[in-house]
């Protein structure tokens, strides 16, 4: 409960995370995602310098396409190689009650006792785009954790986004490699031509390859990709994998592609651009949150009354309130 979480000092918590204590990782995640004033600032600042320590892979795709089951299979193979892995899995917060059912964990419980796997469920808590506003701070905690092989940061960090529709592109501003998960019967070649999630994929995984029509789904995506500009030499060519979380088909190739993409980013220098994009996003998310909080705190009944009485208007008031805060 709150008491347990709050009794440890920021300094001790940071030391314990950097010393390989998973209980401390868990509490640090709570603090940076809750953002309770006075409890998270020092921690967030201490963990930031670890950014970039771990390669980050994001999985996006529609609900029920099998993201969690794929995560489970990827985790199994990552562990077989002896690498460590952390997963942040995001599920939606109810806009009506503020509650959430975080159900991704059910698919990965076979790894519950494996110390080389750390899994944390997060609720969106109001953010659109398939993620949680505090995702960067959460990633930095995982990048600071000492995994036992003398280095900070899990060997892999997987981010599973909310299964939203066609528009959850935020993940591309957060992770190094985006895997877009789809499945047979999810639309024809015109679906695959649309903007949105189809644009941000570094790798496609057509899951449920044990179903019929998987070849058609793969072909639709390949066709849509072929409509783009010609491949440039040295540029990344987006692979399309038919995989099955049920039978394990194609998962080794998917993991190999993720690793190749990581190597490509480094060798081409593109990693620098991506990381800059991440930092810009991290900063902008934080600025908007701080401004919102700060400004909304200063809205009084008087302000609302002045709108009611038509003595002011929302635009003038917003400008006044923002001006006072900057």
């Amino acid at each position, binding site marked *: *409960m*709150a008491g*347990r979480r709050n009794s440890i000092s920021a300094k001790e918590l940071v030391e314990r995370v950097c010393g390989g204590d998973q*209980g401390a990782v868990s509490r640090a995640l709570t603090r940076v995602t809750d953002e309770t004033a006075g409890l998270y600032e020092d921690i967030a600042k201490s963990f930031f310098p670890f950014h970039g320590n771990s390669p980050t892979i994001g999985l996006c795709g529609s609900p029920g396409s099998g993201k969690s089951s794929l995560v489970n299979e990827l985790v199994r193979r990552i562990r077989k190689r002896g690498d460590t892995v952390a997963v942040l899995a995001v599920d939606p917060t109810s806009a009506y009650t503020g509650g959430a*059912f975080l*159900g991704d*964990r059910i698919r990965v419980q076979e790894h519950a*006792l494996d110390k080389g796997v750390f899994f*944390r469920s997060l609720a969106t808590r109001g953010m659109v785009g398939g993620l949680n506003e505090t995702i960067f701070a959460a990633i930095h905690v995982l990048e600071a954790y000492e995994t036992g092989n003398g280095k900070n940061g899990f060997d892999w960090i997987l981010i599973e986004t909310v299964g939203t529709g066609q528009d959850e592109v935020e993940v591309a501003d957060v992770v190094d490699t985006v895997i877009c998960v789809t499945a047979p019967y999810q639309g024809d070649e015109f679906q695959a031509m649309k903007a949105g999630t189809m644009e941000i994929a570094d790798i496609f995984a057509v899951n449920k390859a044990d179903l019929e029509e998987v070849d058609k789904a793969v072909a639709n995506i390949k066709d849509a990709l072929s409509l783009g500009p010609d491949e440039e030499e040295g540029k990344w060519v987006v692979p399309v994998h038919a995989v099955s979380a049920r039978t394990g088909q194609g998962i080794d190739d998917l993991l190999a592609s993720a690793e190749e993409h990581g190597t490509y980013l480094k060798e081409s220098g593109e990693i620098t651009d991506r990381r800059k994009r991440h930092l810009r996003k991290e900063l902008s998310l934080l600025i908007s949150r701080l401004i919102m909080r700060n400004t909304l705190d200063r809205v009084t009944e008087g302000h609302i009354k002045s709108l009611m009485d038509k003595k002011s208007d929302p635009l003038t008031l917003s400008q006044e309130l923002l001006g006072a805060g900057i």
Partner: protein
Amino acid sequence: MEKNNAYRILIAKPGLDGHDRGAKIIVRSLRDAGFEVIYTGIRQTPEMIARTALQEDVDAVGLSLLSGAHMTLFPRVVKLLNENGLGDVLVFGGGIIPEEDMVELKKIGVCGVFGPGTPTTEIASFLQDALDSAAKKA
């Protein structure tokens, strides 16, 4: 210290019984009452439940059991939570549990035990009150 966000609750099914409609109803009703609810799925060992509670840093763990093994499994979960430094996580339970066992379970730290027919709103307000008052003390 008041909490900015929703309390996090883990609902877990220890042991071999596969009947989880009750657990699902609790998940759903707590979600609707504004909690962030994580569900383990069925057939979990006490060790898996404790480790999940640790990784998810939950405020409370709810154990659902219909097989009759509650006097073996509930105390084991409580013990493992304590060993993992999670002694102040609130533990509650439900299922087919005779009244004399309820008394025993409360003694070892299972704060609330809810039998069949308990209104879901009663469980939600029990949790809200217990967690609020624990947070105030901190």
